[in-house]
């Protein structure tokens, strides 16, 4: 029986290695066909900003990898509204992440779900396993 796994992301990319490590674990975990979701709260929302260019800092830009998550059936990506607002960001500042729904003739659908803190609390409460990064 599949379990509900949530990866909870709270750190900005590049300053620490948490964001990259989380992404690696998500991609590995995706092979085990569990019910996977990701949540981005606090500085974690910075992981999804578009236009990241790491040429000047000599680190790998791993942000394009988020757009591959849909192909691994990871298509529930929760972003906390309050965290975006505190940081002067809107959904338009984030990458547009999509997945293709096999049951609806591969229709392209949005992966990102903008949720309030209260809504996210309910999503979190519904998980079997929460992995925090």
């Amino acid at each position, binding site marked *: 029986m599949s379990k509900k796994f949530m990866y909870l992301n709270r750190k*900005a990319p590049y*300053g620490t290695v948490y964001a990259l490590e989380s992404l690696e674990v998500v991609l590995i975990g995706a092979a085990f066909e569990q019910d996977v979701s990701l949540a981005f709260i606090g500085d974690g929302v910075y992981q999804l900003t578009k236009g990241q260019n*790491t040429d000047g800092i000599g680190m790998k830009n791993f942000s394009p990898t988020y757009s591959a998550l849909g192909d691994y059936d990871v298509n529930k990506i929760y972003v906390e509204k309050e965290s975006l607002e*505190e940081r002067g960001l809107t959904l338009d500042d984030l990458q547009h992440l999509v997945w293709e729904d096999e049951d609806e003739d591969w229709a392209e659908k949005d992966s990102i779900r903008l949720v309030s803190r209260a809504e996210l609390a309910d999503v979190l409460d519904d998980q079997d396993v929460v992995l925090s990064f």
Partner: protein
Amino acid sequence: MAMLHTVNKSPFESNSFETCLGLAKSGSTVLLFEDGVYAATAGTSAADAISNANGITFAVLGPDAQARGIDGKLADGIKVVDYDGFVDLVAESDQVQAWL
């Protein structure tokens, strides 16, 4: 005395930036780099604090802002410097205070 303050932590994750602003005197420079660059994003309370800090020069390390995709969202009045500019700021200052 010209002092350079450096902040490399996100203002949302640590109080380094806030503490720095509280102790930085007029005539000093605050350089934001690594995750510190997020303090320079328009529309944040940290950016408001920057616009209210009179007499302090604020600079951001460009490559760190670009890496994080926020170079197009920097608040007004913040100078963008590259690594050479970072070195110049250090060389021009009498003292460097790193707020870790």
